[in-house]
C-alpha cells in the first residue's frame, strides 16, 4: 500500500505535469483570451499540485494565492474590461507562427539537451525530508530578511509606478 502510495505520488506528479503541459500548450492555440486565461490558471493550479507533491507546500500555497488569486484575477478583469473592444478578432497568430514554432522546438531542445547530457545532481538530503514551512520561514526571516525589505521597496516602487500610469490614463482622458 505504501508502495502504491509512493507510486501514486509519482503517478500524480506525472499527471499534474502532463496536465500543466497540455494547459500551457493550449494557451498557444486557444483564440479567446478568456480561455487562454483559464488555461493559464489551470496550468498554474497543476503546477501548484506539483509543488505540493514535491513537498513545497508553502510554494504551492503561494502559487494559488498570489498567482491565481491575485495576478490572474487582475488579468481576468482586464480581459473582461478590454476584450469586447477587441473587434479585430481576425488573426490569432502573428506572421511569425512557423518561425516561432520552429524556434520553440529549437529552444526547448537546446535547454533539454543541457539536462540530458548533464543530469542534475542527485538529491542531497534524504528523500523523505523535504524542508518544511518552518525551516523555510526561519531561513527567510534570518538569512533573507534583506530581500524581504527589498521586496517591500520594490512593491512601493511598483505602486508608485502603477499610480503614475493611471495618472497618465487620467490625463489622457482629460487632454
Amino acid at each position: 500500500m505504501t508502495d502504491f502510495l509512493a507510486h501514486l505520488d509519482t503517478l500524480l506528479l506525472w499527471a499534474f505535469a502532463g496536465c500543466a503541459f497540455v494547459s500551457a500548450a493550449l494557451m498557444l492555440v486557444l483564440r479567446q483570451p478568456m480561455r487562454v486565461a483559464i488555461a493559464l490558471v489551470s496550468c498554474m493550479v497543476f503546477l501548484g499540485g506539483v509543488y505540493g507533491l514535491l513537498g513545497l507546500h508553502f510554494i504551492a500555497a503561494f502559487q494559488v494565492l498570489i498567482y491565481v488569486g491575485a495576478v490572474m484575477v487582475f488579468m481576468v478583469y482586464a480581459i473582461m474590461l478590454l476584450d469586447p473592444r477587441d473587434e479585430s478578432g481576425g488573426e490569432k497568430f502573428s506572421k511569425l507562427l512557423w518561425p516561432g514554432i520552429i524556434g520553440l522546438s529549437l529552444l526547448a531542445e537546446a535547454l533539454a539537451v543541457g539536462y540530458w547530457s548533464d543530469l542534475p545532481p542527485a538529491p542531497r538530503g534524504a528523500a523523505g525530508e523535504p524542508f518544511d514551512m518552518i525551516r523555510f520561514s526561519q531561513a527567510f526571516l534570518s538569512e533573507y530578511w534583506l530581500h524581504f525589505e527589498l521586496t517591500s521597496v520594490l512593491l512601493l516602487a511598483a505602486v508608485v509606478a502603477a499610480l503614475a500610469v493611471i495618472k497618465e490614463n487620467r490625463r489622457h482622458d482629460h487632454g
Partner: protein
Amino acid sequence: MDKVMMLQVLAASLFALGLTGVIIRRNVLVMLMCMELMLNGVNLSLATFAHTMGSAVGAVLVFLIFVVAAAEIAIAIPIVLLLVRRKRTLDIESYSDLKG
C-alpha cells in the same frame, strides 16, 4: 526518465512555450499571460532544484518571483489600457508606429 528530469524538461518547455507565445500570439493580453507562463517555468525549475537539494534559497527566489511577477502585471495592465484607449484593439501588430 526520473521525475526531476521530467520536471526540468517541463520547466524548460513551459519557458519555451511562453516565449513562443510572445512571438506568435497577437493579442496583447495573451502575450502578457505567456510571459507569466515563462516565469512559471522558471519557478518550476527553481522549485524542483530546491526540492532536490533541500536548500531554501531556491524557494526564496521563487517567492521573490511571485512578488515581482505580480508587480509587473500591475504595471502592464494599465499600460495596455492606455494602449487600447488609442486604437481600440488588442492586436499588437497595430502598435508598430515606432520603427526605422
